[in-house]
């Protein structure tokens, strides 16, 4: 099948080509609908992906990108990368990178692919003879022409995710703005306390690895920490059961000290928007299908440990923390001179787990028709125990026995007597209920609601960064009325008219009418002359 010369150079303004599916573009370059890059081995393909992704965006190619293992009639296997050839500029970039790693570049549309332009023929090539061989694809190069059959497709995401990160050649930049840390459950307490001791701002979530096994892995913890001191980072990296990753884009993390062969930033579309893949050096990647809900680590430890905030290095830790310190080494800590801020605003912050009773809900006026429907379905006792206030824009509904019967609005739980926070939220810093009652005036004769700034924040992880001081809303206790009294419309009896035309003859029997007997000619014998004028008639005969 190999011929010494199978191509001829395309010339400017050439419009007819023997190669099916190719034509000149605006610059006169011979271009088909797709480009094909032939690699002799997988290594070449990976190198191409790495080189291309570092310079260009793989996301542009991914929607129509195909990788196929192809085989010649002599059972030689090669790899073919098919990309969309939207323009000769893109094909030039693909060709440039492909030739660097030893790939051969072709262009075509469906079955016949001719060699893409190079320095020897700036406008590309055309074939001298089209091969009529039963094959899936035929490639025409200046030195050969070859028919191939498709053997199997290769999945690009699977390929990229299975690539093992390699050690970074350059020294790692030790100052990371944000890192991901995975922690085994057994190390949860010590790790969190250690982060707290050093005032690291971190959020924690729980995840299970995606697995195809019937027995799921034990859940692990995922921490998102920012500005972690270098020594803490080194400690965590050295600790078995803890992996530290630097974020690459929003959906990838690569273990610190390692580098992925492909620039993951350029292929963000391979992962779902809320998914996360953490590449570990020398181990399988961790696939997290959906990022977990995060909560500040301050809420994940007891009140005693919470008091460690801002007291780093003072040595007032419990025995567990001493043990951690012993295992982690000495804690350098901050300077004693760092004075904590005097006024700490109360913030409404999401919490991962909430098993508090829902005793109140705030329903917006947009949902009032739904609320009315729910009221129709509620039993009498529930209606009696429910108390309602109608403000300008919202219904405040309160039921100490539980508000689950009203599946509407933003639910609230009682943090302290008559002080409510949205379900899934808590106040930070965490303070005692009695102290909270003292801090919030008016809670003795009113109900205090801490409302989130935006209800959508509860579902948006990025909002955790936006937590800000919240001004609570107070509703006087006197304003609450039972639901039956407040919402049900008063009965206004409507007077029924008794003199409507249909009721004038309301006595029995009904005033019926009967027709005259049937006649073959109904008007026979009747006078059909012109009528007498009205004036004449009325003047003659009006008795009044």
């Amino acid at each position, binding site marked *: 099948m190999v011929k010494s010369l199978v191509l001829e150079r395309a010339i400017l303004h050439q419009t007819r080509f023997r190669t099916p599916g190719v034509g000149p573009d605006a610059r006169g370059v011979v271009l088909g609908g797709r480009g094909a890059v032939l690699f002799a081995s997988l290594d070449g393909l990976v190198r191409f992906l790495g080189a291309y992704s570092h310079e260009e965006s793989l996301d542009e190619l991914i929607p129509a990108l195909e990788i196929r293992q192809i085989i010649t009639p002599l059972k030689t296997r090669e790899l073919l990368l098919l990309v969309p050839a939207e323009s000769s500029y893109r094909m030039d970039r693909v060709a440039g990178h492909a030739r660097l790693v030893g790939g051969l570049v072709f262009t075509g549309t469906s079955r016949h692919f001719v060699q893409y332009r190079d320095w020897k023929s700036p406008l590309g090539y055309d074939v001298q003879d089209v091969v009529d061989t039963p094959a899936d694809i035929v490639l025409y190069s200046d030195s050969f022409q070859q028919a191939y059959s498709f053997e199997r497709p290769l999945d690009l995401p699977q390929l990229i995710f299975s690539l093992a990160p390699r050690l970074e050649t350059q020294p790692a930049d030790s100052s990371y703005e944000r890192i991901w840390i995975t922690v085994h459950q057994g190390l949860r307490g010590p790790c969190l306390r250690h982060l707290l001791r050093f005032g690291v701002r971190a959020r924690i979530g729980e995840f299970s690895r995606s697995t195809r096994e019937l027995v799921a892995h034990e859940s692990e913890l995922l921490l998102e920490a920012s500005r972690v001191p270098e020594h803490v980072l080194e400690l965590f990296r050295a600790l078995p059961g803890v992996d530290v990753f630097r974020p690459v884009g929003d959906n990838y993390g690569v273990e610190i000290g390692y580098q992925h062969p492909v620039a993951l930033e350029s292929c963000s579309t391979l992962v779902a928007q809320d998914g996360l893949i953490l590449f570990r050096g020398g181990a399988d990647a961790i696939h997290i299908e959906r990022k977990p809900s995060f909560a500040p680590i301050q809420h994940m430890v007891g009140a005693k440990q919470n008091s460690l905030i801002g007291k780093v290095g003072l040595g007032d830790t419990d025995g567990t923390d001493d043990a951690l310190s012993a295992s982690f080494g000495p804690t350098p800590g901050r300077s004693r001179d760092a004075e904590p801020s005097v006024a700490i605003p109360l913030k409404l912050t999401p919490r991962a787990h909430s098993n508090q009773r829902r005793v109140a809900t705030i329903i917006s006026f947009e949902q009032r028709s739904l609320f009315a429907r729910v009221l129709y379905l509620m039993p009498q006792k529930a209606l009696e125990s429910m108390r309602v206030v109608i403000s300008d824009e919202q219904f405040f509904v309160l039921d100490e026995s539980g508000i689950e019967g009203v599946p509407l609005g933003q639910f609230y739980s009682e943090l302290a007597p008559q002080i409510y926070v949205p379900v899934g939220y808590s106040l930070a810093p965490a303070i005692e209920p009695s102290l909270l009652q003292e801090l919030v005036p008016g809670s003795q004769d009113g109900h205090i609601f801490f409302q989130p700034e935006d209800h959508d924040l509860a579902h948006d992880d990025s909002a955790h960064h936006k937590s800000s001081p919240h001004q609570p809303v107070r509703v006087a206790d006197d304003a609450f009325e039972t639901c039956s009294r407040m919402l049900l419309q*008063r009965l206004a009896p409507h007077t029924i008219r008794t*003199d409507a035309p*249909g009721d004038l003859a309301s006595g029995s029997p009904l005033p*019926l009418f009967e027709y*005259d007997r049937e006649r073959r*000619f109904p008007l026979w014998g009747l*006078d059909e002359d*012109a009528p007498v*004028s009205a004036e004449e008639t009325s003047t003659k*005969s009006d008795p009044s």
Partner: protein
Amino acid sequence: MSANKQDRVRAQRWFDEFLMPLAQAQSVCLQRPISPFFTSAFDASCHEAESFLAQWHEIRVRQPRVPPNLRLPAPGAATLRLVGAGHNLISLTDSSLGRMGSRRARGVIMTWVDELIDSTTPPRTRGETFTRHELVTRLLALKRKDTVIKNWAYTYRFRGRRVPGNVTALPKLRRVRVSSTIRDLGSLWTELDRTTALELTERAHALVVRSPLTHLLHPNLFPGEKIPPFRFTWASIAVLSDPTMRSLVARTLADYGIAPLADQLGRALESFAAHRPSPNLRYYLMTLLAEMLGYYALTVERTPGHPWWIPKTRHERVFAAFLSAISDGPDWLSRLVELDDPRQLIRRLTTHLATRVDDAAKRLASSVVDGARLSSGPAEDKRENAS
């Protein structure tokens, strides 16, 4: 038998079998269609017959809000023409008129209906107005009984006709099953309007308009796109000049509630203002609105939780502007002598309405209300004496 005698016999039969039972709210038997020429036979002899007047003497107004001793006068020629037109309108629902050979009759009868309605003059006295109203309302209340009889072999349908005895004889042996339905005139006319070009509903509306009291008391009697919207006519405002009838209309409309009628009344008031009515006509109409407002205020006051009406459409705002302008006037509300002095509530009500009225509606209402006055003393007394 001469033609004149024939007419007298027919007229007597029409009085006995149709008009008198109708006035007594009993079942009636339709007669042959009434031609405009034939109505002259009514006033020529029959209605003056002693027997007829003696029977008619027993007929009283059945309205609950008029003086109980008000005796209905015998219907005049104009009223008899209107009732004759109604009789013909009912006759047109006879399905036998749709048969081959009889179809021409429908067109002729329709012409007679139009001529009879057109030649009906407005009532001139309170009694005549009530008589016409009573007859027209009872005529519209008539119903037809359709009977379907099935035996083992046949099915017979009698629409508005008496069932012969032989059809239902031997019911067990012949397995006779009888089912009947009662249909009102409105549905019969509507059904015929759908299948023919007779436009019976429109003609029925025209008939009601010739009875001004009925028209005022039932402005929504014939809803439909082809029915012209409610208007205050000269005849209806003449009715409003009578305090008894005006009070009846005001109470009745207030009982309906302002909300369902506001759009119609606003449209009618706008049309009324466009015709540059005389101060007298304005006066009587505004008096009606004042009384209506008073009765409505009483209704609101006596039923806790009664929702206050809020105007929404343009015509509703016009109506609200009129109500508001009336309450601003010097002595419109002082006319509500028989009411329990709801003026304070009316002030609040109209203040509430005034905030929802635009300037154009306010100007229109003020232009009418400000010029409403009686040119030469109240005419109510004259009207009362006339009846």
